[in-house]
């Protein structure tokens, strides 16, 4: 059985000859020579080549689209243009960019015309130029069809984006002026002007008749789309509320007897909802403040003591500043475990340094009296900060304990940070 007629990936220009050869069972070279001979005959080969190029799909296209999928010329061509960019030539190992192809086609056409003229055919060069303009305009206007096909053919008119509009207008102008140039050969300018005006009038009349209908369907389309968006949003909000708030409210009703549980649940839910309502979705979650916030949430969940978090400035979360978060987390756990009540967490970031204050209102303790074997404060907080080039200081008194963590940030010169540190203390 004969293989289907498909454009070959092993191509020099568009894979037409190779595909044809495979289809007809002839050597590629023979087909190419035949094509050239045909081209010499008043450009017949060129026309045949171009026609096959546009109408015959490539192997991948056929696989992707399926045989029963109706395919327009424009789609094929646009698809080809898209694929031409950056597709490696299998045998020649050269890249065929769109521009090269266009230049090649232009050269081929010019060559065909010259050969035809040499053979005695009368080619009106004045006609060739307008046709070239028309073709260029058509290509420009049609080429966006493929790009916007994904967004639906309604938007395919392409006027929704600036680039699309520019293409459309340029294409239109080129085609119209091309046609005018063609006709201008046979008519005088006066007649042409009158005819143009008449055409314009007819077009305007058609537009006038069709405008209400077009506006109506455009509006209906918009209304429908807006309605769909609203519906989607509503569904999303409903789903979120169901998963979070309603579940928590049910839990709270179950645990109404336990005050601690109710507070914990309410606080956790509040935090979650707040995050959902006010968090900026465009902002990544890779900042120091976000990491500290989740550490605070952990402590709240574990002990039920509210943590009041205030952040000034932002800094990226790095390996070094992760140590700061870990130390702050340990300090928060200490505070929740030993002091309880309200805990204040404060973060201040500048380009040179990050500082964290963890404050509780417990009975306080003497840092020097903490036994050597208690790792919490000594290792998790002070040791960790020192290992990463930072400092940790503990101040404890009758009205609470405050742990101050400071870390110079990478990239800043250390002396400046220390100076700042000295000034602040």
């Amino acid at each position: 059985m004969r293989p289907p007629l498909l454009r070959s990936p092993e191509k020099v220009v568009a894979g037409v000859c190779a595909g044809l050869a495979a289809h007809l069972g002839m050597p590629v070279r023979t087909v190419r020579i035949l094509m050239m001979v045909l081209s010499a005959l008043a450009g017949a080969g060129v026309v045949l080549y171009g026609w096959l190029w546009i109408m015959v799909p490539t192997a991948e296209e056929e696989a992707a689209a399926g045989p029963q999928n109706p395919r327009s010329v424009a789609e094929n061509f646009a698809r080809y243009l898209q694929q031409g960019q950056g597709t490696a030539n299998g045998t020649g190992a050269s890249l065929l960019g769109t521009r090269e192809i266009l230049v090649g086609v232009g050269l081929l056409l010019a060559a065909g015309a010259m050969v035809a003229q040499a053979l005695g055919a009368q080619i009106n060069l004045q006609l060739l130029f307008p046709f070239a303009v028309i073709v260029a305009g058509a290509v420009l206007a049609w080429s966006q069809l493929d790009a916007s096909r994904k967004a639906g053919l309604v938007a395919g008119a392409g006027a929704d984006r600036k680039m699309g509009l520019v293409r459309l207008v340029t294409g239109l102008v080129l085609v119209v002026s091309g046609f005018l140039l063609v006709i201008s050969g046979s008519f005088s300018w006066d007649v042409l002007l009158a005819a143009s005006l008449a055409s314009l009038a007819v077009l305007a009349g058609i537009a006038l008749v069709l405008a209400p209908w077009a506006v109506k369907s455009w509006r209906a389309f918009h209304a429908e789309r807006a309605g769909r968006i609203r519906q989607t949003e509503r569904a999303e909000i409903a789903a979120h509320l169901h998963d979070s708030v309603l579940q928590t409210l049910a839990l709270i009703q179950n645990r109404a007897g336990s005050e601690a549980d109710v507070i914990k649940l309410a606080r956790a839910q509040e935090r979650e909802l707040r995050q959902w309502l006010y968090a900026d979705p465009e902002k990544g979650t890779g900042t120091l403040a976000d990491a500290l916030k989740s550490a605070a949430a952990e402590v709240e969940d574990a002990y039920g003591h509210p943590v009041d978090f205030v952040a000034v400035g932002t800094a990226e979360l790095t390996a070094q500043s992760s140590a700061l978060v870990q130390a702050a987390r340990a300090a928060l756990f200490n505070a929740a475990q030993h002091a309880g009540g309200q805990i204040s967490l404060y973060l201040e970031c500048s380009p040179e340094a990050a500082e964290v204050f963890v404050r509780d209102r417990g009975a306080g303790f003497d840092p020097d009296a903490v036994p050597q074997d208690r790792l919490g404060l000594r290792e998790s907080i002070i040791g960790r900060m020192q290992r990463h080039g930072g400092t940790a200081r503990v101040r404890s008194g009758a009205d609470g304990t405050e742990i101050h963590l400071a870390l110079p940030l990478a990239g800043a010169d250390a002396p400046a940070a220390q100076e700042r540190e000295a000034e602040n203390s």
Partner: protein
Amino acid sequence: MSIAAEPITVVVVDDHAIFRSGLKADLDGRIRVLAEAATVETAVAAIREARPQVVLLDVHLPGGSGGGGAEVIAGCTDMLGTTRFLALSVSDAAEDVVTVIRAGARGYVTKTISGAEISDAVTRVAGGDAVFSPRLAGFVLDAFGASTTVSVEDELDRLSVREREVMRLIARGYSYKEVAKELFISVKTVETHVSAVLRKLQLSSRHELTRWAAARRLL
């Protein structure tokens, strides 16, 4: 802050009846609630009629042209000399805080605050001082830039070293008394600094404040 012999008169403005009754029960004996309101229009009318010393004002309110608490203050600008506004909100979004403060509120507290704390805050506002929650202090530091070294022409556009210290301590969770102790100054001086910062926050046309607000999509 001195405990006045006469109770401080208050109007509570909040659209949630449950919250209003809870708040009224929480306020201590120093405070007397004259009236309540649930919408922008009724709030303005109630405040004009009752002429309280302090209005406890929810930031988010139905009615009016959608401006919420800030709109209530705008409707009572002629009374700002005698009536002080203390903003209350569940939201800690920068947008809400800054809008209501710039409208003329003397302070901002979140609704999770305890009864004793809110009574203190009302007393302080009635005495003409400003009430800054840690978060509001954080916003101020963020808005005015953490650094004091930048030279800015307008006095309104930067915090003094002392004001910045006070703001930092408040953001760290210190009470006014603790701030005073920490900096070896009197509570009165702390209150003066906070009021000065409030004034700057309300009046500053600082370009950085604008930029900061723009970054948070406030403008």
